[in-house]
């Protein structure tokens, strides 16, 4: 344990946290603008240039609102729930490599060897925030939202975990930096255009990888409560769902927690399927700090592109019915992910 390690880690934590929180605020703004533009509206464009100061206005409004607490709630859990909704989502990003190296320091906060398992373990804690919010509010609509959320999370966590197994069969390691390194050597998992691209076995593998990607993407949508899987907060059915009884910044925490979860989800998808911070032709940070910065920029550009995809999907598709959601999760994605593992295993047996 030396001081350089502690110092760089602290700097990385503060830098990444600040950046992700900023990105989150602008994700909210982007969501509003994108949804508006897709519906031929304009969206918030008044505060600052093109509405870019809108997140600050929103934050100010949330902070200044009355901290209203309904009378019959279970106070302890009622206050715990918003934190629980936000914290797991932030923590998971710590194992994601968001850049190569900068001045010789690897751009990942915790390069642990259980990588993706840690992500699943922590991300699934996020459901406690929602369930506790629904339960402690002592009101039937939030309760229904919480119940829906727990069953939805359990159903989709399965396909989430099964969908990534093929990747780790291929890479042979759970460490996320190794996953990225593998993709640098062999091409992005869903688009192996470089490396030894004449190898037909790689192209064969790209098909189950694509299936994995689709299943994983859909499961992430369900995990982050985004439409078409936003049943826990279905406004039209549940009057807002699990956060109905929350006001001011406590509501804001749920709201922002959802966006942080979206950013983390995108970051994980980028790491697993889109080669992380790698872009063909751009060397890593050991060739100069400018490339280290470019790597980070590439990573977050990919993340933003995925966030846009999430928004695009949200403003296109209607919400699933409850039984459809369950059937989809248990009868389709679970099986597809399971079969996919065997396909990859068979391909690997013949190719390697």
């Amino acid at each position, binding site marked *: 344990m030396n001081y350089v390690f502690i110092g760089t880690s602290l700097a990385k934590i503060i830098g990444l946290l600040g950046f992700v929180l900023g990105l989150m605020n602008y994700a909210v703004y982007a969501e509003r603008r*994108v949804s508006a*533009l*897709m*519906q*031929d*509206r*304009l969206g918030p464009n008044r505060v600052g240039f093109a509405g870019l100061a809108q997140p600050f206005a929103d934050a100010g409004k949330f902070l200044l609102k009355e901290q209203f607490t309904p009378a019959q709630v279970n106070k302890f859990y009622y206050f715990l729930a918003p934190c629980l909704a936000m914290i797991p989502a932030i923590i998971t990003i710590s194992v994601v490599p968001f850049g190569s190296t900068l001045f010789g320091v690897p751009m990942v906060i915790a390069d642990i060897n259980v990588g993706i398992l840690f992500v699943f373990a922590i991300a699934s804690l996020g459901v406690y925030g929602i369930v506790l919010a629904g339960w402690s509010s002592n009101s039937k609509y939030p309760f229904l939202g919480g119940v829906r959320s727990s069953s939805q999370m359990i159903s989709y966590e399965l396909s989430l975990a099964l969908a990534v197994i093929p990747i780790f069969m291929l890479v042979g390691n759970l460490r996320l930096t190794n996953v990225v390194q593998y993709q640098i050597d062999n091409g992005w998992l869903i688009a192996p255009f470089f490396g030894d691209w004449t190898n037909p076995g790689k192209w064969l593998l790209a098909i189950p990888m694509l299936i994995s990607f689709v299943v994983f993407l859909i499961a992430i949508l369900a995990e982050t409560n985004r439409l078409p899987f936003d049943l826990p907060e279905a406004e039209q059915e549940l009057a807002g769902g699990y956060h109905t009884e929350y006001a001011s910044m406590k509501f804001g925490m749920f709201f922002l927690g959802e966006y942080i979860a979206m950013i983390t989800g995108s970051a994980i998808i980028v790491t697993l399927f889109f080669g992380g911070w790698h872009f063909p032709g751009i060397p890593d940070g050991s060739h100069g700090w400018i490339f280290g910065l470019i790597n980070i920029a590439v990573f977050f550009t990919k993340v933003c592109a995925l966030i846009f995809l999430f928004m*695009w*999907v949200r*403003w*296109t*598709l209607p919400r699933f019915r409850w039984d459809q959601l369950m059937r989809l999760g248990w009868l389709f994605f679970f099986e597809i992910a399971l079969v996919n593992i065997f396909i990859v295993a068979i391909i690997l047996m013949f190719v390697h």
Partner: protein
Amino acid sequence: MAITVPRPNLNWRERLYLPAIAAGLAITIKHFTNMIFGRTKVTMEYPEEKWDSNLPDHYRGAPALVRDTDGRVRCVACQLCEFICPPRAIKIVPGEISPTDRFAKVEKFPDAFDIDMIRCIYCGMCEEVCPEQAIYLRKDYAITGFTREDMVHHKDKLLEIGGVMHGVVLKWNQRK
């Protein structure tokens, strides 16, 4: 009576849902790009762009008092509008015109004429009931103020909005 809703039988392609989802995504992105490149123009950004020149003739905006071509306030303080106004937005204090005045035979004029624009519902009853055609609904619609008092239009303000109305009632002419 129970109604059985017929469910369409989807073929395998429709049941895959993916073509429909792709079509939907294509539609939304088309709207998105059209907006980005300014090909769709739906919203009118209010304070900068206004629709004022297109307001129809029968548009009912803020009620206002008018003067006639002699510069006299047309209102004779009969208080019919005060009586008919559904939300009771109008308050009139009648005054007497001095016998030496040129318009002495009109006898009354409004000493004070207040319309509370917080109450006014722009119904146009006052315009309809007025025997003197002294009150009209103009095309002003952006009535704002920081206090309740700001929102009460006094006589000066009403006359300012109203301006001069030509013709129509000439019964108080000297020659008649």
